[in-house]
């Protein structure tokens, strides 16, 4: 087996991304869906850092992108959790299938 490098990291991040996507599709609990989103964002961060390190170390674009993504993830998670808690209070459940009144 060769020295681990860019392609290995891309494999990990791709796998992580689609594990997250799978979780997002199948989890019925809203909080666990949010957790899947965090997995997706993490995989993207991994991509950025890997590209930064192995391909473009002359600038730090990828690194900074990753830092800002973490900040955005925090903001998004906070608002999402506020919304989920509010939904819990009005619907009495955080099952995604309990909130399907709007359709067609």
């Amino acid at each position, binding site marked *: 087996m060769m020295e681990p490098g860019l392609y290995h990291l891309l494999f990990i991040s791709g796998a992580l991304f689609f594990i997250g996507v799978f979780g997002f599709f199948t989890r019925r609990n809203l909080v666990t869906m949010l957790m899947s989103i965090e997995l*997706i964002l993490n995989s993207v961060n991994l*991509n950025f850092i890997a590209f930064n390190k192995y391909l473009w170390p002359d600038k730090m674009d990828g690194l900074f*992108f990753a830092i800002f993504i973490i900040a955005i993830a925090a903001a*998004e998670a906070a608002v999402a959790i506020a919304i989920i808690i509010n939904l819990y209070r*009005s619907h009495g459940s955080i099952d995604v299938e309990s*909130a399907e009144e*709007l359709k067609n």
Partner: protein
Amino acid sequence: MNELFILMKSELLVTGLLFLLLFIKIGKGIKNESLLLIIQSLLLVNFIIGFFFNKEGNLFDGMFNTNGLIALQKSILSLGVYLISLLFADWFKKSEHMAEFFMLMLSALLGMFFMISSGNLLIFFLSLEMATIPVAAMVNFDLDKKISSEAAMKMILSSAFSSGILLFGISLVYGVTGTISFAAMPAVLDGSPLMILAFVFLFTAFAFKLSIVPFHLWTADVYEGAPFATTSFLSVISKGSVAFIFMATLYKVFQPMQDVWYNMIMLLSIVTMITGNLFALRQQNIKRFLAFSSIAQVGFILVGMSSNSPAGTASVVYFILVYTFSNLAAFGVAAAIASQTGKEKIDDYKGLYQNNRFLSWVLALALFSLAGIPPTAGFFGKLFLITAGASKGNYMFITIAALNMIISLFYYLKVVRAVFMDKNDFPVEKITIQFSTKLALIICSTGIVLAGIFSWIYDYIQALS
């Protein structure tokens, strides 16, 4: 330093407004009525200042760009926000958290300003999120309604998923090209399969925000559940801003890949128009109806966008201006009716004309404009889009677009017929309209009529693009 204040004047002004509101809220002691008046006048000032001290230039190593066209686009968005503050006065006054609502709306607007001006994928992504996350909170503002929180949940989860896809796309673009700057990108785009893949990922984020089929599924649910003020913000301001930056990105950054994106846009435009029309036909709720009709309108915007020419830019900007007037007028009328009677169904609109002449005429005008019937401005808007799109010589595409325009007549006329001609034993009773709402409806109607007749408006936009 002086230059920073001039180039970023809109952004600084909106930030200033945001903090002013924050301090007012902390200080307390102001009634909703007077606060709303203050906000409205500040937003008007914001709109007016958009026309002064415009300069071309960039800041922060090209992360922030501005020019006459961008300033005009910002002015259109400011106008929309100002109209929203007037239109839904009734709802604002009743709301407990009006100041917060405006703070969120202003921060979303600020995000859109940065987005339009962005010269780099990072700032673009951040401002896109900034234009989304506060809106998700705004969707939840009917705090005592179940559907409002359901809509907010759908919005935040869908948009988080979409940003995940977008970010993956951006990371691939970064990996392939080594840059995230818009200016440097065209030179290093290689059109390799991985690049196309990355572009598709990137593209879908725009498609999501613009509600292009098949990335539109959240739209109608969120529109229906959200309060009217948020719905109209989403369908007009949010869509407009994304359309602007989308166009700029396609024309400037992805110019080398135009063969790919032309086909993609053509395909999705056709699918979007058809799907939007088909779904609009069967809607009973006025918000859902307008949601799907706006999806069909986006299909049309894509027709103009596909032209990849200054004429395309001008036609899209012009159309969005007209669309702002028409759609806000339609939402304004619907909100006025809903806030006093709670009626949101099209069947409830039967015989509206009997007691509410003014509202009926404004609604009819707005729908005619959306349907593109001359001599309303909507006709010219669609016409310019089609003419711009036709410059590519793809007549099949243009014919399909024009056919869809006729199909859309069916459902717009259906509503107009309900309002004017259908009989109803219990029509909507006489509705008292707030002064500011009336003012906004008059501004919108005037805009619908005059934006078509005054050719200098289009000439002005064209001169800038």
